[in-house]
């Protein structure tokens, strides 16, 4: 494990069996995560972007072992030493969990409606026997204040809060154990536009204050570009491109990344949707196409793309791409932002 990295994932796979009949014979595999490797430097944010069903959520859950990966290795640096998360037994895993926490998409479903904010945010502290009584309440007060909520709401229940406030509660809970890694799974996609920015700014402030490392999962490319230092693009269980954020958006090298970027509707009436409309739909990970999984939708596809799966190779400093023609193609990235508006 490289010393600057907080997290390294090596050849991670998660296959779900497809069972049939009374005897539950396994007749196939859904390759939700298919041989993914990535790393995140300490204190940085890796954005993981892809369309529904691409495996990004499954990957995030495998990293914290909320679900068991089929194969592969997850390494986390804890207090300067590396821990092999995938090799831990149940007891060790429980002890290690405090270093890696999750923030979920749905702030309505992820908070227990029968518990007060004090109970919800304090639960990890109590379960891990880190604080109780006065001390616990004091810690919760600090956390609640930290995420920008009024401490007088401590005894209220989740239903009394708006979506954005609930997401703040979820963040406070995730931070209660001073984790080093936070896996954020679509943390702003259920929120109203005006509240999204509040939560994104909060996540950035907390990162700066506590040198948190984020694995930030989202489908919204503008959110991903805003929050991430590096971006990995996933398609049908595989990472097809990974690079520094600006490099990826300005010089995409995978046709799928190019198409994703061109499909973002820009809030500018003079920039019409680009011509690179992708035909067809995302294939099922239970029955992916031959060769490069993207070839049926790729306008640059050649014979080899139907036959061979392209490996993820470095095509420039820190820029990895899985495309047979990465070196030949010249693809279109984002247009430059116009100058600041007058108003």
């Amino acid at each position, binding site marked *: 494990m490289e010393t600057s990295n907080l997290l390294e994932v090596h050849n991670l796979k998660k296959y779900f069996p497809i069972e049939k009949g009374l005897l539950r014979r396994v007749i196939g595999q859904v390759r939700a995560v298919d041989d993914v490797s990535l790393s995140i430097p300490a204190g940085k944010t890796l954005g993981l972007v892809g369309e529904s069903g691409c495996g990004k959520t499954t990957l995030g859950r495998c990293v914290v072992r909320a679900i068991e990966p089929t194969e592969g290795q997850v390494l986390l640096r804890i207090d300067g030493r590396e821990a092999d998360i995938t090799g831990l037994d149940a007891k060790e895993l429980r002890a290690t969990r405090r270093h890696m926490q999750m923030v979920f998409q749905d702030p309505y479903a992820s908070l227990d409606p029968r518990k007060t904010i004090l109970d919800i945010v304090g639960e990890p502290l109590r379960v891990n026997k880190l604080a109780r009584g006065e001390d616990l309440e004091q810690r919760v007060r600090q956390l609640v204040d930290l995420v920008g909520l009024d401490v007088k709401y401590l005894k209220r229940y989740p239903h009394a809060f708006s979506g954005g406030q609930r997401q703040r509660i979820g963040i406070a809970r995730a931070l209660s154990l001073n984790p080093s890694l936070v896996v954020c799974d679509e943390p702003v996609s259920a929120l109203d536009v005006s509240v999204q920015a509040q939560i994104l700014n909060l996540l950035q402030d907390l990162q700066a204050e506590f040198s948190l490392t984020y694995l930030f999962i989202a489908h919204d*490319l503008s959110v991903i570009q805003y929050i991430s230092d590096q971006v990995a693009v996933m398609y049908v269980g595989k990472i097809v491109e990974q690079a520094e954020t600006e490099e990826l958006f300005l010089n995409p090298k995978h046709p799928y990344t190019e198409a994703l970027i061109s499909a973002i509707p820009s*809030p500018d009436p003079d920039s019409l949707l680009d011509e690179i409309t992708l035909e067809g739909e995302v294939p099922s990970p239970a029955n992916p196409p031959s060769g490069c999984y993207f070839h049926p939708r790729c306008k640059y596809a050649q014979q080899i793309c139907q036959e061979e799966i392209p490996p993820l190779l470095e095509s420039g400093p820190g820029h990895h791409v899985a495309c047979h023609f990465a070196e030949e193609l010249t693809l279109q990235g984002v247009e430059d932002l116009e100058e600041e508006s007058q108003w």
Partner: protein
Amino acid sequence: MEKQEPVLEIRDLHTFFPLEEGMLKAVNGVSLTIHKNRTLGVVGESGCGKSVTAQSILRIVPDFAQMTGEILLHKNGEVIDLAALAPSGREIRDIRGRDVSMIFQEPMTAFSPVHSVGEQIMEAILVHDDVPKAEARAHAIELLKLVGIPIPEERVDAYPHQLSGGMRQRAMIAMALVLTPMLLIADEPTTALDVTIQAQILRLMKTLQAEMGMSIMFITHDLGVIANMADDVAVMYLGRVVEYGSVRQIFRTPKHPYTQALLRSIPRTGRRARVRLEAIEGIVPVPLDPPDICPFADRCTQFIPGRCDEKVPDFLDIASGHSVRCILYE
């Protein structure tokens, strides 16, 4: 500029829901005009009243709602006030689907799960027109082809659950277009879709609009989608329209502090995308017994005590086709 003919005019619409906790003023004095062959984008956050406005047009709000105001549909030289019709009477039922139809965010709620897509499209044809079944089926296949569903001769017999989200959305559009309505109301039609599929559906809607010559009321929270789809834009907040203008006026010279703040708060892609976002502080309010003051008063950075909380600002014309509800312009 082409001559603008109104298709639908909403005048001072109020749709209130009396609840135990108080009066939910979902739509609180909305006036809007939708023009022929144009797209009106209605943008706003949850609880701003955009969906209830649409439901009021088709009279599909719950029975206990209290509705006042006028909804004038211009149909072949005639003007019909939809707000005055009986909510389940023959007249409004004739208008639904034939003159005005609607598509939703989640197509599964619009389709019956136990009938094939083709049967449901055929039913829409047969309810309004007396044609032989074979002809209705041929028309259904034609519509599925029009909305870009591959192998429509086979898909016509598919059940909704057998189609992907994008294909279901296409099928719903086909069903809405059965009788070539003059107004299509689209309530967050692409919100549940992936971005590449969203691009396909948006393009399809534009093509169909050009081919069929219909007006669209496009409701969404997504400013990017609005910028790409709308000719005119209404920005709603807490049951009221706070700004109305052409899409260029709204995005290039927004006047209302809420519109301005909203445009500043969204992340954009581009070279300097990582500058800090200007968030709008506070929470999105619920229109439960709202006071008669500026709806945005408590979150506005330009709030003036004694003026903004004195009355609801008037809706003022500040340029040709551009109106704003803010005392800064009074």
